[in-house]
């Protein structure tokens, strides 16, 4: 009888924790679309068709154009948002070709905060950006989804980019977050050694991501903070008609 009471008490004690602790379980996709989608001739249908196959909760883009002369003065992101039934956020890294160039996010769920910060180390040729959204998922867990594309020239510049972005992203560490994109650095690089000080390489040991055909290097990542994310699936998928990078589709969970 006493034993039963103890078990009952323990169940009651932990019930609120169990009820509250609905884990985060989301599907994310990261796509470097190469110069605003130039390989696909800026055709949003081609990208949407690819995205629909995987039905992600979030898609993060690098090298997105916004109303540039290069892409025919269109808002590709909003067009894809309309076609996919998602919510868009564009973060400018630089002004370019009479428009903007940078990162972007499509979210299946509305977000309540979005921000873009830029970093331009003194010897870098251009600004790099990190954009993120904060949102409340069904089940009432909050999550931050971030995207970046780091400098292409040197580890020093990339680390400088990351230091700036860490300051912004980790200012509020109360919610779990994912930082995804093209880091222009392989896992053994100084850049990634610096990144892994704070961030978890959720796709550690997974396939190369560039070039899109017969890839030889892994430079696109899905990173997590804090470091207790897990993956149930992590695919590196190749669409040579869309980009020079492979895309990543990952099912990730946070307890």
């Amino acid at each position: 009888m006493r034993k039963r009471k103890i078990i009952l008490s323990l169940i009651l004690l932990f019930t609120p924790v169990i009820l509250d602790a609905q884990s985060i379980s989301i599907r994310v996709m990261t796509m470097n679309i190469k110069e605003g989608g130039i390989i696909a001739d800026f055709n949003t249908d081609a990208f949407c068709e690819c995205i629909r196959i995987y039905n992600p909760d979030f898609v993060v883009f690098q090298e997105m154009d916004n109303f540039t002369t290069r892409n025919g003065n269109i808002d590709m992101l909003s067009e894809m948002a309309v076609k996919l039934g998602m919510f868009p956020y564009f973060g400018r890294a630089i002004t370019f070709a009479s428009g903007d160039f940078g990162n972007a996010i499509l979210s299946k769920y509305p977000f309540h905060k979005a921000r873009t910060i830029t970093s331009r180390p003194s010897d870098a040729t251009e600004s790099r950006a990190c954009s993120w959204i904060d949102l409340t998922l069904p089940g009432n867990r909050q999550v931050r989804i971030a995207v970046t594309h780091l400098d292409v020239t040197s580890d020093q510049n990339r680390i400088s980019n990351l230091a700036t972005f860490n300051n912004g992203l980790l200012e509020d560490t109360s919610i779990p977050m994912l930082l995804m994109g093209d880091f222009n650095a392989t896992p053994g690089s100084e850049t990634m050694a610096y990144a892994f000080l704070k961030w978890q390489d959720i796709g550690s040991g997974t396939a190369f991501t560039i070039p899109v055909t017969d890839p030889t290097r892994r430079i696109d990542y899905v990173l997590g903070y804090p470091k207790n994310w897990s993956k149930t699936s992590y695919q590196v998928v190749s669409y040579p008609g869309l980009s020079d990078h492979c895309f990543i589709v990952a099912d990730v969970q946070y307890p």
Partner: protein
Amino acid sequence: MNLKITILLPAIILLIAGCEKQQPSDDGYVAPDVPSEVNENNLLSIEFYSRMDETTLFETNDYQSVVSHIAANKTPLAFLFDRSDATIGNTSPVVDIAWQSRLKSFFIQNQTGDTQIKGTGMIVRSLVPGFEGFAVTDTLFLAGCRLTAPLSQPTVVTIMTCKLTESCQFPVLVRCLGGKPDDEIIIIGTIKASLKEEMSSYLRYNMTDFRLSFVDPEDTGKSNSLFILSSIKAVYRESKELTMNSFPLFQCNIEYINQ
């Protein structure tokens, strides 16, 4: 034992005293007088679409008139769409209107949900550096865009919105604003008409450095009113209630006081 009583007793008394509802010692906060003359160069315009009740704004996809109206009206700094509810996985009317108008859209939810999410869409003219927000799940979602208003001198303002349907949201709103709205903040949203007096009273005793105005719809049968809550830097001046096809809207003029 005596030592414990010496330490604990005053602590308990302080705790109880701290928990007691503060009684107003005066008439509460009163905003400074509004400048009598309107500075036309410092007026910013916001269009707020709302049926002023709890029905959905876009019952069908027939919102071409809104697209045309936005294209023809370059004055408003922001367009807000109360109850432009979203269905997860379906095209949001506000995202579509923004895309067709070549503008940028945001969505401020009123609640969380698996499939249907009530909320207010927001369309702005340019890329915004920040979409600021607070989410106190199941109580209050307050969010909006930080943008530069082309006034007599370019002025950064944060146009935010939220929906007030219960009095328990007032303390949360005050907490989100840190007890006083920042200079740049202008919040425009709907409030259940029966809560207006309570909101005025609550804010008067729990917030400082703010201005609060209400706009009632011409149809007295409607359940909601519009509220404009801002820092003392912004003054609500006037609004016009219009209907564009089947979409009712309020054109609100707000003056920003630079000095």
